[in-house]
């Protein structure tokens, strides 16, 4: 029972990071109808920037801000320089270009920083607090929850309460009509990529201290898991991404906790296939609304 409680809290904490990362995938899917396979590599790149700033200034918070800012810039850059020019003649084009970007980013990171793991310090204690003899949640887990919750709330407010959020939703759902109404759909696409990459950067900063550290490939498996989370929730649904992330975090925590850490990839694949073959739209998809 004690172990179950520990695994649950641990799963929710990592699930929160997956949720943020899945949310970033959903943001781009909704805006551009593509899955950004380079998101993991982009997040790692911004995390390197973040930790370089941490090393230079000694402040985790400045590093976090730098990473998020780098995410905004990198996302906008990738959209303006690459993704905008991917033709629609080949439906695989966007995936392949994104994978080219993965290879490029990882190689450049390897050249600049080296291909070994670099330590990435957490701002809070990652050891669980012991309350009444039960090892439970760590201060770092609490920070992760808080950070992801703030991001989710901010994004929700942005999309439902601000003019730019309304513009972004409209351009995603009906680009042509939006243009006729004076919305610069291309700019909304750039903003969407920038936002998504910034959220991805935050997720990267949150997840890297819990793993082996900074490495060009540090987010490879995280990307696959977050993709699974996004698919579980339905690629169209931001709420689904958050719930999907938490759910996948929980499931993987139980699986690895009871069956060993090596089973993670197997569990991810099984989960992904199960959802896609049984309920392709995801558990929380807004399919009904889209059929009109």
């Amino acid at each position, binding site marked *: 029972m004690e172990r179950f409680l520990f695994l649950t809290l641990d799963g929710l904490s990592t699930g929160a990071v997956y949720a943020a990362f899945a949310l970033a995938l959903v943001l781009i899917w909704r805006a551009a109808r*593509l899955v950004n396979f380079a998101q993991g590599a982009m997040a790692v790149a911004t995390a390197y920037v973040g930790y370089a700033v941490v090393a230079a200034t000694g402040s985790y918070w400045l590093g976090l801000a730098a990473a998020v800012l780098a995410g905004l810039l990198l996302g906008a850059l990738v959209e303006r320089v690459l993704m905008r020019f991917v033709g629609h003649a080949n439906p695989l084009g966007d995936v392949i270009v994104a994978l080219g970007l993965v290879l490029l980013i990882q190689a450049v990171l390897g050249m600049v920083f080296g291909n070994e793991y670099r330590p990435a310090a957490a701002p809070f204690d990652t050891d669980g607090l012991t309350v009444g003899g039960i090892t439970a949640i760590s201060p770092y887990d609490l920070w992760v929850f808080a950070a992801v919750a703030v991001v989710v709330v901010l994004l929700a407010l942005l999309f439902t309460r601000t003019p730019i959020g309304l513009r972004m939703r409209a351009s995603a759902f009906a680009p042509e009509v939006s243009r006729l109404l004076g919305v610069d759909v291309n700019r909304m696409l750039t903003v969407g990529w920038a936002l998504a990459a910034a959220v991805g950067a935050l997720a990267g900063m949150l997840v890297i201290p819990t793993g082996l550290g900074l490495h060009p490939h540090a987010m490879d498996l995280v990307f696959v898991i977050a993709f*699974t989370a996004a698919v579980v929730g339905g690629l169209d649904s931001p709420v689904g991404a958050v719930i999907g992330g938490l759910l996948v975090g929980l499931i993987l925590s139980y699986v690895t906790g009871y069956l060993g850490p090596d089973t993670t990839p197997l569990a991810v694949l099984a989960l992904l296939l199960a959802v896609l073959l049984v309920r392709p739209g995801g558990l929380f998809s807004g399919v009904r609304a889209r059929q009109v």
Partner: protein
Amino acid sequence: MTQSPYATVDARPSPLRRLLPPPPGAAGPRGSTLLRHLVLAVLAGAAVVLLTNQLEPYRNLQVARVCAFLCVTAGFTILVGLNGQLSLGHGALMATGAYTVALVQRGLDGRDLRGQWSVPLSLLLAVAVTALLGLVIGLAAARLRGPYLAGVTLAVATLVPAVTTIFTGVFNGEQGLPFPVATPPAFLGAYFQPERWLAWIALLAALLTMLLMANLVRSRYGRSLRAVRDDEVAARLAGIHVARTQVLAFVVSAGCAGLGGGVYAVLTATVASGKFPLELSLFLLMAIVIGGLGSLAGAVWGALLLVALQDLPALLTEAFTLPGGLAQRLEGNLALAVFGLILIVVMLVAPGGLQDAVRKATARLGRRRPRPSR
């Protein structure tokens, strides 16, 4: 009434007609195509065999590696280029072939069953096992499209280290499985270069693969593959079983990947999970895209590229004396960065890849007329 009023061929809209199998009477030069491919394969094989007689051992191993990769890229380009299904998990399929060969070779050796037949047998089993795995993935893939298929196959690519560690009793975890080297047969003489023998094995596998794929491309199935890629609905209307065609493409390309992985294992006489990382799958994709998607000649370029990607770093560090740390960082990464960039550029401005560029260049030089586009 026994005949449907829609059954007459003329009633079909004309764009669909080219997707249809040719009527039995007008089978076209199918037989001669097979013969032409066979002659080409024999000529290419003879040329490479002559080449291997001139090369030093290291070069022969390079030739062998190109041939091993060619098995993979030839099948892979048919799946991605011709059938439009993206797989990011072909590295795992290569691993399946490689581990099958290792297990079979070790099993035979352990029972004192040795002989020249063991390598072909284990390669055959590698193809069979991998094709079976391809069938399983293909059945799921036939229901998935675009990013979903890419994501699932990417998840497959992450499995290799996990599976080899979980079943460490069978696969021996990260250490991997060494097995006896394939030695040249006695009749070639005691001083026959072993690397040349390995190159021949790989060459034979590559030629067989190319021959089969070339004929597949030209066959009824080849047209079905393209029809499904271009327009699933139209293909279905033309009487093509879309799901079956997609599964077949997956099985074929998986078999090829298994053969390539198996040959690769034979060359190194060992397998280990570290040789089949996630990036391998991305490298394979990069190779066929830069080579020219959907073209078997492009697959040859792709195979050359993959070996170049492996060997360029060493050349680089030999050619320039760099400070130790920098050399270590550049090793591997520089070539990869360049190829990643090329991949992006090819996809954005020259989707035909290297093969298309070469064809255009030769056409411009007037050495031969450009082939009609597919």
